[in-house]
């Protein structure tokens, strides 16, 4: 199988018959695009989840603040819950 390799040395492989710059540029562009396209959605997902978490916590705080402002309701609520 290895005798089917078209290059006889690493140097020759890197040189690409004189077309090194263009051949490797295309493969580098591909590698960059490939990795960005797979990692960006994962980073974005983490951002979305964190944002949502913050929003949920904020919502809860607003709800509990409203409960504190209305002490009678709050008390009955707590008594009703048995705590």
């Amino acid at each position, binding site marked *: 199988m290895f005798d089917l390799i*078209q290059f006889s040395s690493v140097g020759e492989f890197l040189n690409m018959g004189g077309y090194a710059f263009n051949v490797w540029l295309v493969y580098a562009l591909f590698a960059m695009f490939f990795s960005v396209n797979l990692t960006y959605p994962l980073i974005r997902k983490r951002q979305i989840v964190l944002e949502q978490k913050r929003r949920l916590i904020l919502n809860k705080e607003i709800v509990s603040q409203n409960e504190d402002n209305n002490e009678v309701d709050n008390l009955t609520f707590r008594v009703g819950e048995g705590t």
Partner: protein
Amino acid sequence: MWLWFSKLGSPKWFYELSGKWLPWLIGPMALLLIVGIIWALLFVPPDYQQGNTIRIMYIHVPFASISLAFFPLMALAGTITLVWRMKLADIVAKTAAPLGAWFTALALASGSIWGSDIWGTWWIWDGRLTSMLLQFFLLIGVISLRSALEDAEAAAKACAVLSIVGCINVIVIKYSVDWWNTLHQPSSPFSLSNEAPNPPEVWIPLVIMIFAVYLFFAVSLILSMRNEILVRERRSEWVQQLVQAT
């Protein structure tokens, strides 16, 4: 059938199912990519005219061929949005547009770099190149149209119409090499004979790379669709539970 159809439109259902699909897509994609790239870089014989620049083909052709799928895909999703107002279809249409712009850009860039060697020029206003550039601008148009319109439903409808119209350009791209025969070569037939200009040792790795890039497209689309679903469904209970669980 109709139950399946309406289920498919549910973002929650798609989110759960695609989570199961992803490993089965990523595995074969990685395998095909590794085999395809090693084959293309090391084992494909240099072309008798183009020498080692032939190795650029294994990136350029898969990306160029998948780029043509974006407008038909967006048009199909757009039609479903217009007729049945399926939520998921608009999510496909929205996430496919920027992805398509990137894939088209890479096809253009790799073609341009290839051309600078074998044609002696980076760019020429040839039918194929021009129509491909037009597709890139059309995709940018779809993206900006959606962000320009405040009303999400109106934006979805406008983008659906533009995507359907944009399909005309795909036909132009496809046949451009036959209609205006300038620098870009027409597509070569695959042949099993070793005497043919396109023997199996040249096109088998190409087919492998095409499948690999198609899978890569599917994975990228699913990943960004899942994010879009999380944003759009953020008020629903299942997303809130999912957020709290992570």
